């Protein structure tokens, strides 16, 4: 749900102690105690997460508009069967938002993982002080709230006074013309066109998410016994071979978790896109989350049923990916069994 959800993996290795048949203590039978402790949390999850999930599916089969969501006397929603899904799949927006979602996720996940892994490997080879220095630096990117990320990158890519256009103007004219077919970047707008908009979005999201990958990979690397590397070195293994034969296989569980988490986060990116695209006016720039939001809340005639159907499509895609993640965790976690 949030960027933090993975941190949960932290220290998951400690296994829970078992206690059976304890009779001391208060009057509660020890058999009931865990259920009593669990009850409030379970209620919260049921009411705020599980029931809405069910409702989302139900709404996707109904026509839900303004009259159905009035506080007083709401009109009952009409059952429309698969109509919402038909309009989702039949809409040209479906294909463009699916394309935006998938291409963005693929590019961003790949870049984030490559950059994050490289930085993780780098941190592992740096001296203590330098490594702490860089870690604190990348924390700054990681800690920046998504809304602030979006406005900062919007400002960096500003057409007239942005640093990026200034930097591009520094390129020698000939080189710039050769690469991009132009030499003067002053006034280049980045947010009018979907491609350049998504380019900025990719830069912003990679910038904000590589620190997490880097720190996770670093923590993983620290857990690999150094004897393995010494042995590899003695056998004359080069850097690439060592990575491929030792580092990667040992960090595979970490990588698979990181890949799935990155896919999940990048598939549903909303906040940064909403701010960079300036709300829901630029329909060409929609991804599935933003499209769902736009149908449900964007216009004067909200179509919550249609929005719910889009959300269901997005959730199904994500749950399929999540299954891989859950299986991975269940496999590696003795504690859960």
């Amino acid at each position, binding site marked *: 749900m949030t960027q933090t959800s993975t941190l949960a993996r932290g*220290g*998951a290795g400690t296994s829970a102690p078992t206690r059976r048949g304890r009779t001391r203590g208060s009057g509660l039978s020890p*058999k009931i105690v865990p259920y009593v402790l669990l009850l409030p*949390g379970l209620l919260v999850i049921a009411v705020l997460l599980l029931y*809405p999930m069910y409702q989302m599916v139900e709404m996707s089969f109904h026509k839900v508009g303004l009259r159905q*969501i009035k506080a007083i006397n709401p009109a009952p929603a009409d059952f429309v069967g698969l109509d919402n899904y038909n309009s989702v799949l039949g809409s040209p927006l479906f294909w463009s938002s699916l394309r935006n979602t998938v291409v963005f996720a693929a590019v961003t996940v790949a870049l984030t993982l490559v950059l994050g892994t490289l930085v993780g490997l780098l941190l592992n080879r740096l001296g203590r002080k330098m490594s702490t220095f860089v870690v604190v630096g990348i924390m700054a990117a990681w800690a920046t709230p998504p809304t602030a990320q979006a406005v900062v990158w919007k400002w960096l890519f500003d057409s007239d006074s942005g640093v990026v256009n200034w930097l591009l103007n520094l390129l020698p004219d000939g080189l710039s013309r050769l690469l991009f077919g132009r030499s003067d970047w002053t006034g280049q707008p980045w947010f009018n066109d979907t491609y350049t908009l998504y380019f900025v979005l990719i830069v912003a999201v990679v910038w904000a998410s590589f620190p997490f990958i880097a720190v996770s990979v670093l*923590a993983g690397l620290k857990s690999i016994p150094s004897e393995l590397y010494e042995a590899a070195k003695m056998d004359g293994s080069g850097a690439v071979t060592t990575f491929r034969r030792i580092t990667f296989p040992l960090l595979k569980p970490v990588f698979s978790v990181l890949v799935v988490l990155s896919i999940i986060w990048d598939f549903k990116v909303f906040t940064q896109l909403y701010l960079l695209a300036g709300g829901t006016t630029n329909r060409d720039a929609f991804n599935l989350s933003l499209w769902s939001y736009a149908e449900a809340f964007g216009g004067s005639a909200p179509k919550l049923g249609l929005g719910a159907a889009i959300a269901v499509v997005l959730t199904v895609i994500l749950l399929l990916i999540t299954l891989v993640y859950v299986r991975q965790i269940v496999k590696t976690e003795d504690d859960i069994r």
Partner: protein
Amino acid sequence: MNPLARRKLVQIALNAAGIAVFLFAVFPVYWMVATAFKPNDQIFTTSFIPFPSPPSLDHVERVFTKGVGDLPIWQYLLNSTIVALSAVVLGAVFALLAATAVARFRFRFRTSFLILLLIVQMVPAEALLIPLFTMVKRIGLYDQLLGLIVINVGLTLPFSVWMLRTFVAAVPKELEEASWIDGAGRFTTFWRVLFPLVAPGLVATSIFAFITTWNEFVFALTLINDQGKYTMPVALNYFVGQRSTDWGGIMAASTLMTIPVLVFFLLVQRRMVSGLVAGAVKG
């Protein structure tokens, strides 16, 4: 080249790469702060002015007095603080109880509950937005901070339980057993023995929940209509829409929003770095 010189050269190259990564990560944040303190003629220029010279407090002062939208930024910072603190305190109680249950007891459905925690974390919050919006509207919590507080408790709880259970499990159960032998009851043991030992973990978990709630955008955008109840992210979005070229003011507002998160991040940094992936690696 002799091996010593070579090694030295490699170390220099690595340090240079480290500095490059540092600059890439820090520059946008630095630029946000620098812009907030620049006078307008140093902001709206096609040349590169690395530092505000001299620094100006105009923008910061303006967002505090004249404000963002029509209200001083205090209002939004206050709203965000109310929502985040209330959600964290409520969530911490629920999370501690549930975490104790899964870390200290074996019972039927324990595994199912843990898997449920994982799965609900993976459902995109954006997808729950529509049903939660209608629910909040129906029970009359629309346009109320209380509605946002309740929703944020729900959004952060699965993760909090998941994280907190490892802290509870790390407390040696012998301590509790000793307390029982001394005749303490279940509640006393929990309160006097387990709770103080879990407290640091509870603080770390709460900080994560605080950051999540503080940053939360889409629910605050949808569930709040009255400008006086905007949280910081929504206020910032509104500000950008309303005065899209006032970069000094926008950067001052985003700096103010970022500071608490940065401070908290640095506070829990060590715990994150050390414990983060330990569980994933061992498999």
